[in-house]
């Protein structure tokens, strides 16, 4: 074959590929979209997370539609603001299912809203891919229609105990937790891990109400019990109150917290060592994730590099589009209920879908007995030491 013919052939091939791409995009615009019902908080307490998640969904859908969509159909987000209100969330979910005829539900920002969506999803028989809320509560016991795509708190708690005992060599550990269900659940895991893994009993376990104006009594109890370190499991708003309590009673000990290890907070403890261990889907050491975070930073006009909310949202959409590709849906409005069932089955059958959050190579798999996408070995915990020095902690089960 002459060189000229080869070049011509390549030229025709490129032109055909370009034409097909254009045709694919045109086709995607021509067919009816696949509607995804999303609830996140744009207002109220959890809005900081909700806004990031919404921006992530929007970016994913925009980029995905530009590539041609699923079966030539674009994705379309039907969005609603849950306002951290479960009753409102339930109503909006009903509306999205019954009026907007969405194919699948995605959300929400916090646990109570996600539980409200879960309830509607089960009743209306529509798949829900949850990218927020407490993973264990949402995924256990297994509900046929709900699939959890974020990390688990108990993994964070295991790492908090590990850093306290193995790295910090602490022997007399005190626990301070918030008095709600999340806090007492975390307390139980911490006590169990200390006892079963390290044969340690906490020297004091103290509860604090969610809106305490002082944690002096709790910190004094820990100090008087001779605690040499603190496992702190309180809400983000209560972290400064806890640290001020420590400072006030002159209780000098390292703090392992799940939240809010900032320079300002560390100053409140009198510059004591403070560690923040957060679960699971942080991915700033992954080049593929950082490329997405750069694009997200550009559209949100903020730095998403150290933000750990967006990978959860990205994971949801990645799992969803793979399932949509495999579900063989009819897209006939009359068959919406059957299509939702097919999509649910496809999500449940997902195996080893690559996701962006967690360690490099992390994947999602679901089964009829496991609706939690992550495997424990895929978690990456972040540790902040002194609010400045960042260090990645691999999950304890990962070699």
């Amino acid at each position, binding site marked *: 074959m002459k060189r000229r013919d080869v070049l011509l052939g390549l030229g025709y091939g490129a032109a055909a590929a370009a034409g097909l791409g254009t045709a694919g995009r045109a086709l995607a615009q021509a067919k009816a979209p696949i509607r995804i019902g999303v609830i996140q908080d744009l*207002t*109220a307490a959890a809005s900081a997370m909700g806004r990031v998640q919404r921006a992530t969904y929007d970016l994913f859908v925009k980029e995905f539609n530009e590539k041609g969509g699923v079966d030539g159909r674009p994705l379309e987000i039907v969005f609603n603001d849950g306002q951290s209100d479960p009753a409102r969330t339930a109503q909006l979910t009903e509306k999205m299912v019954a009026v907007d005829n969405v194919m699948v539900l995605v959300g929400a920002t916090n646990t109570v809203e996600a539980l409200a969506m879960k309830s509607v999803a089960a009743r209306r028989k529509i798949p829900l891919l949850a990218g927020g809320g407490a993973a264990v509560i949402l995924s256990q016991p297994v509900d046929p229609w709900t699939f959890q795509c974020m990390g688990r708190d108990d993994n964070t708690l295991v790492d908090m105990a590990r850093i306290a005992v193995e790295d910090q060599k602490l022997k007399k550990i005190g626990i301070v937790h918030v*008095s709600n269900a999340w806090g007492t659940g975390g307390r139980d895991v911490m006590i169990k891990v200390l006892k079963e893994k390290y044969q340690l009993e906490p020297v004091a376990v103290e509860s604090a109400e969610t809106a305490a104006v002082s944690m002096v*009594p709790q910190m004094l*109890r820990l100090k008087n019990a001779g605690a040499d370190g603190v496992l702190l499991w309180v809400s983000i708003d209560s972290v400064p109150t806890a640290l*001020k309590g420590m400072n006030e009673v*002159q209780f000098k000990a390292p703090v392992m917290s799940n939240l809010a290890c900032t320079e300002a907070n560390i100053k*409140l403890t009198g510059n004591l060592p403070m560690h923040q261990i957060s679960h699971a889907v942080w991915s700033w050491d992954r080049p593929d994730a950082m490329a997405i975070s750069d694009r997200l930073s550009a559209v949100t006009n903020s730095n998403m590099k150290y933000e750990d909310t967006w990978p959860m949202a990205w994971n949801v959409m990645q799992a969803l589009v793979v399932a949509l590709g495999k579900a063989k849906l009819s897209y006939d409005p009359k068959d919406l209920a059957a299509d939702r069932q097919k999509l649910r089955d496809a999500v449940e059958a997902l195996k080893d879908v690559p996701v962006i959050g967690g360690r490099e190579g992390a994947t999602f798999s679901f089964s009829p007995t496991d609706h939690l996408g992550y495997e424990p070995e895929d978690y990456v915990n972040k540790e902040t030491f002194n609010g400045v020095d960042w260090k990645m902690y691999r999950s304890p089960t990962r070699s």
Partner: protein
Amino acid sequence: MESFVILAVSAISSGCLYGLVGMALAIIYSASKLINFAQGEFVMLGSMCAYVLIVVAGVGFVPSMLLAAAMVGVVGIAVMKFVMAPHLARGTASFSMIIVLMGVSIFIGQATLIATGAVGYSVPYAFGSGSRMIFGVPLQPHHFLVIGVTILVTIGYWFLMNRSMLGLATRAVGFNRDMAFLTGINVSRIVMFSFLLSAAISGLAGALVAPLIGFRPLMGMALVFKGFMALVIGGGFGKPYGALLGGIFIAALSTLLTGLGFSEFADAATFLAMLAVIIWRPTGLTNQADDH
């Protein structure tokens, strides 16, 4: 002994904050028979003013606290003049006005949330972050500021209500609005004064609590809840110091249980105490059964 003093000072300080919020609730109730659901947002605005003045503008704590009270007082007047006054003039039912105040609460909270985001902002203590050795015990001086300001406000409020014509008129309006009107009292002005005073005290409480828990947009509701409990337990609807004593009672109970190693039961015990007071002494600890 050292632990006891630390716990006692902390409990009294926390109780004073609950008491101030309870007192602010009682003031509006006295003049209008309304429970102001926007009271928490007034407290939050006080914290926000303190943050802006102290952290952003570099103003000292005490002047910031007074300015916060004045600024939130102005907000209180605005709420009264533009939201409540038309309803009062129309004779809207109390229940409807409480709903209106809930709307004000949601509006202020959400507007602040949109403006500042959901994050918390730290506010420094009035006298530095460390504890000082006072009588050989390490104590945070801010607690004494909280206690001192609360005592001054309580005394001032008592004098205002019991030794001035304005206080007499306020009590008269609260007792019987129509009769007060017939005796020549400007009822709407009295109610406006109660909003001003109540909002200013809330602003003061917000500035005082800011170094303890920081400022965040949705902080108010939990404090108002505690303030309301203080009011009910202490019987502050009738006596200015009732809310203060109720607040100290709540905080002392919670601190005592925590100090004894029963922190898990502190919340439940507080509610149980309120329930007990409502059953056995409905007018509160500081009132006689026939006070109302």
